């Protein structure tokens, strides 16, 4: 029987005497009744962070390649007219050496042929060209088409249907997309929505091997384009909104067996952190940070998938990739830095061992996944050439980092940012604007950039000729209200009501040319809708990108002037590629089919009267249904 313990019953004896004394003398006691000052924790308000970085001033005249000569791409191969992986080369530059299409003749581009994939969801893939065949991957049900470029009109040689689980559509947070395949060793590698990596023989279209890597009942899906490095296929999972445990896995090219798997949370052994691990910044150093920076056991639903882009430096034998947002979105339910979400990793591709890591956004407040592409460059920096990676990050800064140690050399905004007021280069941590920190029981307004960030997954391109980085991105802000999230495996685990809208200026999309040395915009084009397609730059100094209302545009890489544009059947969120066909002519190919997170309002038929639909994007894209319908067609353009 648990006793009530020794509570002391206060009898009025002593008090009675006091009362009697005071009653008789009735001396008024001086009242010192200020009472303890209530330590009201009024958060010290940071001066309203002037949004650093201008929204792009369009009139800057292109610097005709002054710095161009000095920036070189590590491991650059000679141009072979093919397109073997979505990012073209291991440095992820998306630069093509073909120069038949130049700024002079680009205006005469016309449609060569087109091919309908028969799938009406978001087409985010990059077509591959190997020899005389083009390979196209579609969103769910992830059909792989092989098109014969030697024959006019590119007829289909064969098609491969993996028949993924239909239920996987229920756990794909932002449209059932697929970002493309990769070619190596005579095989085409790509992922299906229900977490399978498949190898298909490039010539016959027969399945070579298929490996199941994840489980949709834990909310995992796979949408990323694999990267094949030294006989290993590198793939990662997505599902930060469903409480997954993120990982990157390497499969053997020949057999499909798992060579190694690195988790992005939990003890160091799972994260493959060993003796070689030398993070540059002090807050990333420590033992088992994947556990200690989470409330007990919460790292198991901690998100941090890997669904973005991987780059590889052969000389240093390191792969560079970023991890996604922590789960749930509601920051109050996961106090601590939540390592290793929104982190850039450098790993040894053979063993998967982490060499360095830099957490871009500790204790992420606004769903800023850190998965964007890192473009590897050798850059003149303060008098000497540094081996760097340049990454236009989702939190609105273009990071220039030394890719051997992970030191952040520079971080400058390339869009409207008020959620942070800069990056402290000594500690490597962003200076958080606490005024914009989501709090339970309160709506925090005008957070810029919104959750998709200043730039989401859509890859940028770099031209060594102009020395400029061509960044397709968006300009959105949002109101958020955190609510309590409940983890039920297989169901969303978000915990945030979001409402997005166009950022300052009213335009929702921007296409910038960014000079990584001078660290500022050279020219900028504003678009009505978010520019959700990838960028392509060619030796002919022509830049290609597509808009969400269906315009495929070509611009002068130096001045940004519009050279040519064509209206396609549906909004463009795919990645443009260029190749030399068997007939020796240069062609440009692009997949048109609106969808993805912004396009869900069309591809999933969202009802925009609920402004929190599609995790808040519906409110910003109310007018998209009037501008485009669903589609799923490949278009190929060439000179007459």
């Amino acid at each position, binding site marked *: 029987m648990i006793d009530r313990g020794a509570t002391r019953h206060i009898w009025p004896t002593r008090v009675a005497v006091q009362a009697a004394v005071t009653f008789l003398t009735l001396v008024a006691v001086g009242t010192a009744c200020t009472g303890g000052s209530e330590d009201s924790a009024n958060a010290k308000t940071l001066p309203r962070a002037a949004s650093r970085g201008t929204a792009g001033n369009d009139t800057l005249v292109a610097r005709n390649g002054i710095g161009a000569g000095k920036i070189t791409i590590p491991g650059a191969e000679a141009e072979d007219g093919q397109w073997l992986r979505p990012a073209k080369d291991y440095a992820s530059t998306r630069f093509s050496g073909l120069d038949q299409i130049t700024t002079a003749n680009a205006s005469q581009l016309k449609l060569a042929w087109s091919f309908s994939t028969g*799938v*009406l969801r978001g087409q985010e893939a990059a077509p591959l060209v190997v020899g005389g065949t083009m390979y196209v991957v579609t969103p*769910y*049900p992830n059909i792989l088409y092989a098109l014969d470029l030697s024959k006019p009109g590119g007829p289909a040689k064969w098609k491969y249907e993996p*028949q*993924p*689980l*239909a*239920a*996987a*559509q*229920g*756990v*794909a*947070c932002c449209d059932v997309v697929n970002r493309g395949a990769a070619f190596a060793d005579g095989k085409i590698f790509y992922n299906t929505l*229900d977490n399978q990596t498949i190898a298909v023989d490039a010539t016959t279209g027969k399945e070579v091997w298929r490996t199941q890597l994840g489980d949709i009942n834990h909310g995992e899906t796979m949408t990323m384009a694999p990267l094949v490095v030294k006989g290993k296929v590198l793939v990662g999972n997505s599902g930060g*909104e*469903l409480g997954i445990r993120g990982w990157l896995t390497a499969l053997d090219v020949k057999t499909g067996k798992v060579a190694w798997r690195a988790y992005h949370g939990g003890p160091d052994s799972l994260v493959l952190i060993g003796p070689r691990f030398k993070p540059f910044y002090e807050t990333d150093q420590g033992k088992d940070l994947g556990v200690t920076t989470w409330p007990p056991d919460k790292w198991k639903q901690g998100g941090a998938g890997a669904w973005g882009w991987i780059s590889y430096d052969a000389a240093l034998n390191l792969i560079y990739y970023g991890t996604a947002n922590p789960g749930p979105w509601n920051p109050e339910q996961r106090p601590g830095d939540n390592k290793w979400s929104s982190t850039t990793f450098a790993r040894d591709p053979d063993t998967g061992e982490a060499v360095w890591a830099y957490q871009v956004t500790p204790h992420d407040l606004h769903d800023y996944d850190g998965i964007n592409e890192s473009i590897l460059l050798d850059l003149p920096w303060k008098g000497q050439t540094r081996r760097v990676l340049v990454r236009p990050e989702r939190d609105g800064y273009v990071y220039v980092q030394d890719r051997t140690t992970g030191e952040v050399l520079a971080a400058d905004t390339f869009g409207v940012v008020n959620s942070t007021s800069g990056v402290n280069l000594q500690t490597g941590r962003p200076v958080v604007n606490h005024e914009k920190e989501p709090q339970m029981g309160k*709506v925090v307004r005008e957070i810029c950039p919104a959750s998709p960030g200043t730039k989401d997954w859509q890859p940028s391109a770099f031209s060594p000729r102009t020395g400029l980085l061509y960044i397709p991105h968006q300009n959105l802000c949002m*109101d958020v*209200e955190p*609510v*309590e*999230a*409940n983890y*039920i495996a*297989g*169901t*969303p*685990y*978000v915990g945030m*009501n979001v*409402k997005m809208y166009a950022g300052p200026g009213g335009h929702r999309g921007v296409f910038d040319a960014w000079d990584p040395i001078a660290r500022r915009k050279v020219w900028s084009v504003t678009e009505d809708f978010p520019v959700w397609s990838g960028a392509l730059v060619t030796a002919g100094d022509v830049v290609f990108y597509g808009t969400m209302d269906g315009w495929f545009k070509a611009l002068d890489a130096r001045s940004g002037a519009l050279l040519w544009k064509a209206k396609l059947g549906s909004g463009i969120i795919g990645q443009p590629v260029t190749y030399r066909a068997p007939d020796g002519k240069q062609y440009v190919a692009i997949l048109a089919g609106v969808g993805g997170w912004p396009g*869900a309002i069309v591809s*999933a*038929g*969202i*009802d*925009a*009267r*609920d*402004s*929190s*639909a*599609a*995790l808040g994007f*519906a*409110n910003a894209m109310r007018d998209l249904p009037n501008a485009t319908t669903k589609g799923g067609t490949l278009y190929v353009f060439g000179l007459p």
Partner: protein
Amino acid sequence: MSAMSAGRYWGRIAAVAALALGLACKREERRFNATYPSAPAYASVTLDTLQPGVPSPELTVKSPAEGNAYDIAQGKLLFAQWNCTGCHSHGGGGMGPPLMDNEWIYGSSPENIVATIVEGRPNGMPSFRNRITANQLWQLAAYVRSMAGLEAKGPSPGRNDEMQYKVDEQRTPFRTPRASSSKTLPAKSQRP
């Protein structure tokens, strides 16, 4: 004040009270310990109106939670707490189809909605069989219908104590439900 007028006075009070009696007792009842029809009851309801030969008479199961303010409010709480908002958002849709428009892929009657929740649907709706009790199933179905304006205005929930992202259920315009053309791809056969 003569006794007679006092009597007449009381007559009037009683009459008004009696009139009000029938007004709102069912709508406001808080049924805590009631047991609503369990799973098999709804299974006998067909999903499609197309029937070979002479169509047999419509068989409907009366939803116990229909028009009851407490049940619809409980449905609203559960809809948010069990992560239905994750896919259907607050009626606008996201991963899942919108529920506040009047296109119903798998039927809009309460028993159709209960069947959808229990059995799940091939294109990603999880199956909650054995995970949600019968009472709560009907409560959820009643709330889903109120989001589309298919429940009476009175018992539908008012505004919620969160960010105002949409019109509250009481003021969603009333509309007649329409079986929708298939919005998503025909379901691929389940992989073996």
